[in-house]
């Protein structure tokens, strides 16, 4: 009987319901305000893709698949490859001065939640795609010249597709983690390799990445060399994001779907492996809710979260098996 009443209360007065929990410094699912839900990482599950990763944060599950193809480079950048969206075909025979909107594609479909409809990407999906795009591009996570095969003639194109399988809030953190982990995935043709002697700024605990076959270019044909060791890309920065919602004047880390829909404001902070700020994004709310102190707190929590995630990714990659899972629960204490 008591649970029915609580359920009814939650439906008619959701704000009041949440406020009562949050004022006691706890959330309806039992978490403290700064704790993330259990995060699980599973790498290399899709053998048809060059790189793949599945991330679960609580009830939100996303899967990212990376496929590499050869294409002609854009005229304006003849020695750079690119990350491309679902539909762009690069035909450099048509001189175009406009940069393509190259975007990793995030798909939020009815399969993950009844709030999404099938058809063209919803606003939320487009926003998520653009978020990933900004992080990868502007933070210079990849060096696009690494993707060049033969300047002006052939470059690698990486297609990144993120598919949401179940939705319970905070799809941005899950998508970014899946994308970065998929780029880190050794792929199914793992060959022993020497450590890259190009000195990336990334700490050596992250192993080399999407493995592309070694190719030669001659007379307009790109040939893969089966016997040669694979080409390796380098990720120059490893960004990890933390999303927080402001609800009833409190900061909640990793909002669930219910919390997201009730929140006044939302902040997403992206930190790289050196603790540098890659990206900060704040939406919603009036000017009286988020003070600079609040933003400082967001950045602190993002730093703590980075430590947790880094440990998990390192554990996941320590074993050289194709499929591995590592999880980080919410037992880690936040260092203030």
């Amino acid at each position, binding site marked *: 009987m008591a649970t029915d009443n609580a359920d009814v209360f939650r439906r008619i007065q959701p704000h009041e319901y949440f406020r009562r929990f949050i004022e006691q410094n706890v959330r309806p699912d039992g978490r403290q305000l700064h704790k993330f839900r259990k995060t699980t990482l599973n790498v290399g*599950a*899709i*053998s*048809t*893709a060059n790189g*793949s990763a599945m991330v679960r944060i609580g009830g939100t599950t996303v*899967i990212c*698949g*990376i*496929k590499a*193809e050869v294409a002609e480079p854009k005229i304006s950048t003849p020695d750079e490859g690119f990350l491309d969206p*679902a539909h762009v075909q690069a035909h450099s025979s048509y001189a175009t001065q406009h940069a393509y909107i190259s975007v990793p*594609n995030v798909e939020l*479909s*009815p*399969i993950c939640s009844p709030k999404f409809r*099938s058809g063209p990407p919803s606003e939320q999906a487009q926003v998520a795609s653009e978020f990933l795009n900004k992080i990868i591009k502007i933070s210079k996570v990849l060096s696009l010249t690494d993707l060049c095969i033969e300047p002006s003639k052939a470059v690698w194109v990486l*297609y990144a*597709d993120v*598919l949401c*399988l179940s939705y319970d809030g905070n799809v941005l953190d899950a998508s970014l983690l899946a994308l970065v982990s998929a780029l880190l995935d050794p792929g199914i043709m793992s060959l022993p390799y020497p450590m890259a002697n190009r000195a990336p700024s990334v700490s050596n605990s992250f192993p080399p990445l999407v493995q592309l076959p070694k190719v030669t270019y001659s007379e307009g044909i790109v040939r893969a060399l089966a016997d040669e060791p694979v080409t390796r890309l380098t990720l120059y920065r490893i960004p990890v994001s933390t999303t927080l919602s402001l609800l009833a004047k409190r900061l909640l880390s990793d909002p669930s779907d219910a919390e997201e829909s009730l929140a006044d404001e939302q902040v997403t902070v992206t930190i790289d492996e050196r603790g540098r700020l890659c990206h900060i994004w704040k939406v919603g709310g009036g000017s009286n809710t988020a003070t600079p102190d609040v933003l400082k707190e967001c950045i602190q929590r993002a730093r703590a979260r980075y430590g947790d995630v880094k440990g998990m990714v390192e554990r996941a990659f320590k074993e050289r098996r194709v499929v591995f899972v590592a999880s980080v629960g919410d037992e880690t204490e936040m260092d203030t």
Partner: protein
Amino acid sequence: MNMLHDRAIINVEFNMAPFSTAERKKRRSLELSSSIKQTFEPVIKTTLYPRSQIDIYLQILQHDGGDLQACINAATLALIDAGLPMIDYVCACTAGSIDKEPIVDLNHVEESSDSPELTVAILPKTGKVNLLQMESRLHVDNFESVANLASEGCENIYQILDQVIRDRTKGLLKQMKQ
């Protein structure tokens, strides 16, 4: 939105993730959706849910042949998991023949060869054929052996699906009793 006054409408959407195939392409097949819808319409007791819609969403994450059969089997399990009453399981299996030798459950490489591909979906209790689809050429003399092999495959799949459902239900009952 469409609505029928005496039964539920079934809506099927099929999607293939772009990273699921060897060459990247995004495919939404209407034909497959339509076949699956027609397969399940007589099986689900739609008259128990008038003026409603039942949505079945199918997503292929990794593709290696046998789309239709995998979708039908997955849909059967999902419908049972959702608690929707059906008159029977629907179990599907593919079969073909290479060099006159009937083979069951073709993978992508076998599908791409010149083997015909026959997909059969049966209702295991009665053995009735719910769906039969064939692509490429198959000589009518060989048809029976290939079709029988597919039906046998369906029987095997039924055993597996049934065992999975029973195990899960036992687990749920155990949790409920605690």
